[in-house]
């Protein structure tokens, strides 16, 4: 209803189905909330089943309308995931860079997607909660470039692993448990986009989505689906209306004003 005001209406517009996967409480919903509403909530209700939101992302030549399926993270909801990643053209596999187990889970998801999702799906590996890592500078953007040899470090839970010190000069009270190098190495191996983000501060969030939008091959883009395209923004799981803290309809204008990704 409102995005036409952004001046992107003339450009060809196509919708992309994107699914978020990852362990519980790594910040999937928060990433989406940041991207869609430029907002952050400390106590985001857990997603039951999945939440559905949309956001447009204007590129120089076209506009991508993301139809975002934000899935529940708890292990047992995993069997529902195929329902959501069905026909998805892009996936955001999120882990918490302060929690080694979440990267293991993320790898499982990547493997699942590579085998089960539609071929040619664009997958981005995202390490969230960068704000908890002291070395804030470690934020890396863009498609991982192969400089280091991508051998993932040992996934020990031990936080004193030497492998990490390489990247983190300032190891003072750092909650980070997964080095950028380790994750990027893995991402390169698997041919994934790789980012470290903070939904809390907003670092790199828009960049992730923009990179995905750019990575979607032109050929796989379909035209915008008709109907209430603009009105489709709503959270499924966090569904009660009239409670604007959890329902995105209320924040619609704010989001529109921000006008998608700043790319």
């Amino acid at each position: 209803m409102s995005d036409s005001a952004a001046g992107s209406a003339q450009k060809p517009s196509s919708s992309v189905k994107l699914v978020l996967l990852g362990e519980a409480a790594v910040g999937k919903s928060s990433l989406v909330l940041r991207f869609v509403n430029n907002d952050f909530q400390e106590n985001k209700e857990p997603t039951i089943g999945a939440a559905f939101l949309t956001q447009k992302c204007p590129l120089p030549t076209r506009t991508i309308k993301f139809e975002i399926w934000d899935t529940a993270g708890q292990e047992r909801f995993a069997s529902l995931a195929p329902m959501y990643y069905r026909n998805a053209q892009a996936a955001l596999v999120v882990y918490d860079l302060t929690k080694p187990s979440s990267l293991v889970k993320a790898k499982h998801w990547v493997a699942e997607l590579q085998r089960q999702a539609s071929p040619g799906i664009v997958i981005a590996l995202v390490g969230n909660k960068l704000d908890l890592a002291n070395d804030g500078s470690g934020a890396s953007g863009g498609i991982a470039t192969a400089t280091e040899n991508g051998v993932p470090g040992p996934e020990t839970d031990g936080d004193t692993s030497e492998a990490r010190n390489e990247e983190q000069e300032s190891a003072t009270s750092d909650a980070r448990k997964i080095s950028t190098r380790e994750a990027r190495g893995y991402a390169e191996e698997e041919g994934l986009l790789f980012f470290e983000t903070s939904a809390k501060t907003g670092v790199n969030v828009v960049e992730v989505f923009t990179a995905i939008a750019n990575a979607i091959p032109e050929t796989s883009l379909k035209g915008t689906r008709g109907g209430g395209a603009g009105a489709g923004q709503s959270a499924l799981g966090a569904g009660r209306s009239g409670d604007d803290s959890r329902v995105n309809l209320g924040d619609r204008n704010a989001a529109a004003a921000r006008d998608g990704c700043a790319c």
Partner: protein
Amino acid sequence: MFQLSSFVQKAQSLIDPANFIIPSLTPSADRNPSKSSLFRQQFRLPDSQNPLHEITAELALPVAPPSSSTHGERPRDGDRPGNRYAGQLHLSERFLCFSTQPTSFLPSASFAVSTSFTGQTHGTGPSGNGFTVPLCSIRRVERLHSLTHVFALALTTWNGALGRHPSSSAKDPPFVPQRFTIQLMGSRQACERFCDGLKKGLREAMKEIEDLRVVVMDCYSEYLLTGGSKAKGEEPDRQPPDAGLGMVFRYPGDARKLRDRSKMRLWAEYFRENGRNFTLIRQPTFHKLIRVGLPNRLRGEIWELASGSLYARLRSPRLYHETLSKFDGRESLAIDEIEKDLNRSLPEYPGFQSEEGIGRLRRVLTAYSWTNEQIGYCQAMNIVVAALLIYMSESQAFFLLSVLCDRILPGYYSTTMYGTLLDQKVFESLVEKTMPVLWEHLVKSDVQLSVVSLPWFLSLYINSMPLVFAFRVLDVFFLEGPKVLFQIGLAILRINGEELLDVQDDGSFISILKSYFSSLDESAHPRSENPKLRAVTRFQELMVVAFKEFSGITHSTIEELRAKHKDAVLENIESFAKRTSIRNLGPDSKRLSVEDLGAIYDRFYEVLYDHEQRQKLLAEEKKRHEKKKFERFSVQAPPPDAEVGRVGLGPSSTQMDYDAFREFLAATAKWAVADVRGQAWNEALSEKNRQLSNQSSVRGRSKSDLKLEDKPEPADHEFMQRLFRNWDVDRSQGLSLQNVVNGLAHLKGTRDIMNSINYFFDLYDNGTGQVDREGILGMSEALLFLSRRGFDGALTPSDLPDDSHDAPLSPYDREQKEDTKLSTDERFLGSVSSFIRRCFEYADPSHLQNQESTGGGTTVDQAAADLDAFSIGDDDDDLIEIEDWPNLLPAQSTSKSASEPSNPTSPSRAASESANAALNPDHPLHITLPTFRMVVLADELLEQFFESFFPQSFHLSDHPHPASLAPSSSLSSNLTTFTNLGSVRSQSFSSNRASVISGATVAGFSGGIVPPNKGLRGVLDNIVSDGMRMAAEVRKKMEEAQREMERNALGREEDEDDEDEDGRGLVTSASSAAAMVGGMSSWGVGIYSIDPERRSVRERDRDLLEGAEAASVVDGKDVHYPTGDAGGGDRTNDHDSQEVRSSRRTSDSVNRGVFSMVEFDS
């Protein structure tokens, strides 16, 4: 007869997946729910209750003083005062229940039979009008005398009397106890029987009255009618019971708008007339009052009452707090997960922004996760519990959550969320049926309905609708059950149908429903002229549509659809679980093909499932037998295993114990299948101590035999135990799927001879990188064990060493072979015996000197010397021990004879002495991996054994990993040191082999050997001939050894005076030696060591041989086997051996028949 029936049972349990996988529905099979489970469902009783007696009856209620215009379903106006209801009276162990609702079960109960019950409850819920009173709340039962044949009981309850303080009773209005009458309709006998049952139950129930008092005092209704009324005038002498966080943080919604006060008044009135909490009698007003929405403070209690969780709480009133304190301080995955969600459960409700509310939520979820660890914690439970806690105390919420998860919504929150997925399918099919146009549209526009509806069901609409309305749905839901969720869901779609028909994608679909939910409080007909119609809210409209328009959706509709879709849903879950767990097996698993992994996965869970089923059957049988007072059996039966192989629950941490592991192996490798005949013999012959030590497994086997005729019976061998221990890396006495996969991956993953040799060595390695004497003997036993079912030509084509492999053999050797046409099996025996000999040779280089001096068996020794030179250079340990060996004790010359029989090539005294030296227990010896490798590689058959047979004998799928198929270049490349030895080796050893062979042939033919490798006959004959030849050979050796020993004994002062008890000579020596000798002779005949374990092993082997012999005789005479598919491939072989076994079974059916008759049919 018994076997047949058990087979049918087994088959049924396999066919009916209802038994399988859906552990979470009622414990019994749910496609045909048992009468008791239906009974419990109808009256919402705890699982402990069973319908004991039932009788048609008429409930007569006293006339209500204010007589609010209630019309019973079957009002009898005029002649009698008060309401009367005709219905069915039921008695269970602890409850007396009455319902006007036709029961959903018949005495012969199953859904198929009880067609009379449509499931329609007309808003009264399945328990209808009537009552469900615990027997302990009945104070008095009188039998009313009447002139007619009417058999009437007058019941007086504790209603209102429990909470009365003796002191305050004076001030109260005169207390009128609740009293009503029931007329039993039935034959006098039936009535008497019912009354007897009731009397017994009442007596039993007396002791529960204290629990009843405790629970009743927590009920708000009690406070409302006694304490509450007093609080107005004087100082409140009683705190109101906890009615949830709402008492502190306010209840959601506007109390005035909800007309909370007048609802409260109505309920108070209802309680006064019809009793409260436990003694409440359901009349039509009850259901109406629920439909209009419960008042805040009573909501929790009525939920408890309607759902039956109140009865669960009565049963163990302290369970909640006990659970919390019992597990205080413990940690679990569930607790971690709970902790993550505590701050995000209904965060907009003020109570959950406070420590108080969060604490309650934490405690309830944690306590539940402990009582049901299989469910643990599932997201969405936090939301449901948070909602419950607004209206009820922690303990109440705990029990209601239990009832919700276990009974009302089984499988919803389980680890696979099976129930949720199933109900989504059911919902979709209901939409298709009731709104075909909409359904078609959704399908066409590729909108997946469950994407929208799943959260509705999972969080009971709490998270979808504004709270006030969600609670109204819950009010009805707890009374009428899960069908309410479907009715509401359908109504939502129906009301929004037109708009939804315009929808093209998920997004707009969701947003339409979202805006609908947010407008539930608005008028449904805002433009209507009629003010009354205008006042109807959208929510009211929703309720009307749900319960009027979709009144046809009944509990049985849902049940039928669930049954219909169950299989498909399970299959989906299963394949997903399989896919995921296989993918997550870690790097080692990559060595196996996906098909192999799939085969392992299936087999693993199948075995676990079978195992569990068998345990269950055994437990049932045990129970049955106990009832019949057959003590012998019940003593024998193992305790029912609590372990559950939850196939449908996917990758759980289920582990298989050793017995299950044996079954797994039996399904995987031919050699792991027991020889039934041998078993029977074994059981008949074995000593008591053996039975004692092996009791459990023997028992399990004999029973499994009866239960699962179609299953290969697993063998039990030390090798399998070693394998088990080796795979059990975390020493948990159980193997997870991961353990099994890793074990097999290491074994099969790389088809490299070095790998499998190392693997085998590791099994016997005691952690020091060495295998001691005991281990060497164990190894050789294992080799024989593994090979005893033949080499399965299809599996190991390269194993037929005839021409291609034996090319470098000497002409002489080849000649020999052509002459005799010996089977691989036979030659392998020779290889094993030389294996032992060489092991001892190279473990003990001093032996070399002895042999040189004697000059016997020249070629062999020559080769041995060559090899030895290599081994000495390779391994310093052996050198060190050389020094010890010269001090041979003459006494040991006897014990050598035990080892000798297996070494047919060196019958000379000198050679036996050298072997003797190796057996000297005073001089511990060992071989190391290089030595072992060398010894294996020195023998062509052993080499092939490790190269192909050993890894391949573990049969997984028909599509092995390409890597494992790649021809191995192993031998030459890996062991270059051997290349120069090659000629010597092959020459010397082939001649060695030839002599073995010729010797064996004589014995074999004399024992009636038949040319092998002729299909079924061949297999059988191989076994027979092996046994016979060995027996003959061993006997020969023994005789020689004994003769020799006699000669020796003359000149020596040691203790062997008794010639045929050579084993006993070792009694004095270390027990390891004794065990060893026993092990050595385990394939011999007639030599007993003193070690009972060893002895039994040996005897079993002997039995095996003799059994095979017997079977072959039968075979030769008159038994004709079905030829079956004689097509090539390993399958045929499997098939063959199966038939062999079955034929053996036939042959000794008399024997076994007796056993089973005695054990099971009595």
